[in-house]
């Protein structure tokens, strides 16, 4: 299983580097990777494809791990950053940021050139964390009941989403296209900056995994059962929730809401790993990276000039799989 998975990961990585809309011969790509190659090939591989792949891998890990953590602590297969309001919070704050910087900094201007795009991830992060905070407060007021937390997450998410769409519809004007593109979850034009923005979060959260691994296993159970194992339920619940929100919010900030990865990858991982908890965690991380990489490659190749956003690709492939899994396992 591990070998097959590693092979799959390497294969998808290689495919993502070697294939693309710009037709570069294999030999040239290999030359670029070893430090040689033409200037044009170097530009395409090193400055366009690689940063895009790196951002995709990190975002994939973020989404799938965030979904896995949320699903475990809420004991709820519905839990996903995009269902618990975190993605919508990030979406709303990015929308506000995109729409109202124009009014603040350059009233009357319709050009997109001066847009402080570099701040987008930060805006997304802030909004996602804020939404996570709301869910967190509600969760404790509701006594950590899985069903109620999910209901509230869905409600908060729906409200934030409606407000975001309303703002775009009412004030979007020249920004609508750029917001829509971001909204559909896309890796288009992602640079090393995006990958570097995500990296500290990835490292910090992965480093937390050994610490939260045992509590996480116990958080699968009811609060009384978990407490009888000596778990500080509320504290551990909070820690996992914070880690999960940080992962999801930073990823939404960088690449937009790629919805289905956080929902489906953990299901897939548990399906493959059975009752092996540690294996399912590892599978979640690897499959998250693989699926986003492959999804982005498919979107790049299928759409050609007008590429299909990764969010659309994951939805088209993810939903039938999820529905089948859902019917089979529940």
């Amino acid at each position, binding site marked *: 299983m591990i070998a097959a998975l590693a092979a799959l990961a390497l294969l998808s990585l290689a495919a993502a580097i070697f294939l693309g809309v710009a037709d570069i011969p294999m030999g040239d790509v290999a030359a670029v990777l070893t430090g040689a190659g033409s200037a044009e090939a170097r530009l395409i591989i090193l400055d366009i494809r690689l940063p895009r792949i790196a951002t995709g891998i990190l975002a994939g890990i973020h989404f799938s791990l965030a979904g896995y953590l949320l699903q475990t602590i809420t004991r709820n297969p519905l839990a996903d950053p995009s269902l618990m309001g975190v993605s919508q919070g990030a979406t709303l704050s990015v929308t506000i940021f995109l729409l109202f910087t124009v009014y603040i900094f350059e009233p009357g201007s319709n050009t997109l050139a001066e847009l402080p795009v570099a701040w987008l991830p930060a805006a997304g992060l802030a909004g996602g964390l804020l939404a996570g905070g709301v869910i967190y407060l509600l969760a404790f007021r509701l006594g950590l009941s899985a069903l109620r937390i999910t209901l509230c997450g869905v409600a908060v998410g*729906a409200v934030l*989403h*409606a*407000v975001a769409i309303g703002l*775009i519809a009412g004030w979007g004007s020249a920004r609508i296209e750029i917001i829509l593109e971001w909204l*559909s979850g896309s890796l288009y034009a992602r640079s090393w900056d995006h990958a570097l923005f995500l990296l500290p979060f990835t490292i910090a959260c992965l480093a937390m995994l050994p610490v939260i691994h045992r509590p996480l296993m116990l958080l699968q159970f009811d609060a009384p059962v978990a407490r009888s194992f000596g778990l500080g339920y509320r504290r551990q619940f909070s820690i996992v929730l914070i880690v999960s929100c940080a992962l999801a919010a930073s990823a939404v900030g960088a690449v937009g809401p790629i919805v289905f990865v956080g929902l489906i990858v953990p299901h897939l991982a548990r399906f493959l790993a059975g009752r092996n908890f540690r294996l399912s965690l590892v599978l979640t991380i690897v499959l998250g990276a693989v699926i986003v990489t492959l999804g982005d490659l498919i979107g790049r190749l299928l759409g050609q000039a007008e590429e299909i*956003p990764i969010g659309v690709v994951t*939805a088209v492939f993810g939903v039938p799989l999820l529905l089948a899994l859902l019917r089979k396992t529940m």
Partner: protein
Amino acid sequence: MSPRQSFLAIGLIVVAAMLAAMLGLLVGAKTLSVETAIRVLLAPDGKLESVLIWTLRLPRSLAAAAGGAGLAVSGYVLQTLTRNPLADPGITGVTAGSVAPIVCCFVFVPWLSPAYYPFIGLAGGLAAASVTFWVSRGGQGRPLQLALGGVSVSLFLGAITTYVLLLTGPQSASLLFWLAGGFQGRTWSHLLYMLPWTIAGVVGALLLRRVIGMFMLSDHAAAGMGLQLGLWKPLILILAVIPVAGVAPIAGPVAFVGLAAPHIARLLKPRGTGWEIGLSAALGALIVTVADVFARSIAIPRELPVGIVTALFGGPIFIYLVQRGRLSLAGEMR
């Protein structure tokens, strides 16, 4: 509540909705006085005020009321059919299923007459609901299974809708406003176009109240009482989608009404399914009418989409209901 009290409650809510609609006639980019409104309503002339009320504000208010009633009844039927307090046109994917194919037709088959949109909406909504039902074993699985299936279907269709919007470029702005849910610029023809579907949904639900009520028990009990499940389940599902098919082409998705109105109606504890349906419809009409008035008077001359307003008010109410543990159907949540 006794039937008499229920009747009274429905009457009060309808009067409140009418008052809200009257208020809606007065406010807008040009504010009118009550006397002017009444004079023009009784004796329309060709002047600006008359045009404003008769061609813009009145049909719009009526469309909001009809749309609200339709969505609420749809939510009620879905919740009862699945015995799931979460069910509503939004969460079961019915709304997204109606909206997505309409967007696609608008963009890719622009020569297609909008007269077909409700039928497309009906087909799409039914298809989406069928998938959700298939996943949750006819709605008989756990509540979360239904919700998970429905939300997945919605996300799937939402992703496609966003992509289609991306492809359309300049047109996306108007489509987006429609997608945010609202009644801006809706005329008599829009209303007439929606009304048969809404009326069919509400009247159908009232006529079939006994069948719908039986689903509140369990499949076993319903079958034991002589209900042919194989026949009635699909029929009731179609009944639930019919009003949404009418509302979706006109107003886009208006969130939370189908969820909130039936719950509020049940909180009033009317005796009997028919009264619950009536109360839900009246409450739905009231909620959307008020939301519409609010949406166009809060930021004059700009308008908010009604979808935002219902979400902003519906969300907290919903969360409050969850917090108080009041969110239950027939007394328990499985």
